[in-house]
């Protein structure tokens, strides 16, 4: 039991502390050995992250397959799953046949731009319509706070629209003033407050008090 606790709880904590220390030392002490350790560990970090991405792919297929099983009669869901499999296979085939170091070949780029650029741009572009509809319903001066939100938002949109900047030249300096003063005040406050929280969590992690991030299973 004690041994199990060591492997499951104490060793991960030791790894956290052990890997945080070179980072702290690297910042404050310039020494070739520390630099070398840090460079090595830096590369490790990248390799681990890249390898871990496969989990996302597995979860994706698992999730989509489960979704299809839940709705066996839903044609769009079924078609979506088959399209996912077919296109993934096509991408893999394309990257393998054009050579592992030719993933950025013209053929691959062609596929990528034809499908991905158009679809992802169209998806996010839809947000504009949703936001227009939301603006119509939400941007109303119901209270002082909602008025300030509306006024700041609209003035900044005016500053960014050349037609308004021409009709109402004052909106350019006013929009920039809102950006550089009230907005700056609030974002500075948010950054300082959030960083205090970040530091607190970092300290708790090093002390073994913040275990949520590494608690698995």
């Amino acid at each position, binding site marked *: 039991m004690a041994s199990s606790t060591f492997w499951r709880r104490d060793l991960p904590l030791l790894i956290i502390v052990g*890997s945080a220390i070179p*980072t702290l030392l*690297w*910042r404050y002490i310039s020494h070739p050995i520390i*630099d070398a350790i*840090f*460079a090595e*560990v*830096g*590369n*490790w*970090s*990248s390799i681990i*992250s*890249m390898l871990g991405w496969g989990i996302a792919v597995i979860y994706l297929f698992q999730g989509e397959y489960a979704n299809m099983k839940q709705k066996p009669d839903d044609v769009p869901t079924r078609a979506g799953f088959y399209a996912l499999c077919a296109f993934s296979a096509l991408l893999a085939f394309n990257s393998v046949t054009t050579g592992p*170091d030719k*993933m*950025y070949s013209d053929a*691959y*780029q062609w596929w*990528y*731009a034809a499908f*991905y*650029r158009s679809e*992802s*741009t169209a*998806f*996010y572009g839809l947000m*504009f*319509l949703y936001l*227009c*509809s939301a*603006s*119509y*319903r939400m*941007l*109303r*001066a*119901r209270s002082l706070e909602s008025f300030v939100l*509306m006024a700041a938002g*609209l003035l900044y*949109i005016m*500053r*960014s*629209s*050349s*037609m*308004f*900047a*021409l009709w109402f*030249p004052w909106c*350019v300096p006013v929009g*920039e003033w809102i*950006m*550089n003063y009230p*907005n*700056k005040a609030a*974002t*500075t406050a948010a*950054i300082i407050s959030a960083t205090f929280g970040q530091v607190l969590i970092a300290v708790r992690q090093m002390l073994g008090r913040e275990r949520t991030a590494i608690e698995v299973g």
Partner: protein
Amino acid sequence: MGEQRSIWYKLGNIDYRIIYLLVALMTAWPLWSPVGTPMTVGENVKQYAEHIRDMEPGTVVLCGFSGYMTMLPDIEPIYLATWKMLFEKDVKIMVRVTDVDGPVVIRQEFEKIKPEENFGKVYGVDYMIFPYVLMPTATEIAFTDNIRTVYPVDYYGTPLDDLPIMEGIESMHDVDWYFTSGADWGNQRYTIPYGVKLLCWGTGTGLLPFVPPFYDPVSGPCYGYVGGASQGGELELESGFFGAGVKYNDCKNLAILGLFAFVLLGNVSYFGEKYLGGS
């Protein structure tokens, strides 16, 4: 028995499909038939351009290029105008690809700029591109301390030591300016430990609201910023390198006009219902 609704209520509850249709048409129309609305250049865009113009010959510039394909319509005008301005000068340009899409997009971007043909620049001498590497915090810090530990070769697989541009460039200590998409992050990684000056470029939504706390055109850490296609168009105007930013200007103007009309209608409805009554 249908309930009688007041005019104010109806004004405030227009079917969303009508809004979609009208706004979509107002966006699309100028692409079909350009209107040619005039443009003005904001102060931050002028300062950003001024810093590029003031760069001395031999200045070392590192560009963090996310190249996220989805966001290209919002950010491409900034990339292209900035690079063209940089290529006009005698500065050393290194491009770091920071997103998985980047390696695909970067080639397309440089094919549009044609540095060799249009600016007489030579790859490896005047500019170079790093390959994509996933950069968690530790890798990022390792890169700043010793570029070659993370990137032994360039985008095309050439060892960095074989590129004349990389002579004397070992770490971020040797870089003068960094174009980054996040002032906060750039400040932590580059300005605090190495004193590198930041110029920020990015999407409007990802950059603009968060950059002011770090922005000071005289003392930095962020000396200038340009975010989003609207300001990208302003940069095109300021630099004289016209592109999609200026082209999008008409569409953006007309659609915004539609948006404002609907917001106005919403408020008229709200106040009408509140003060003039309605069932």
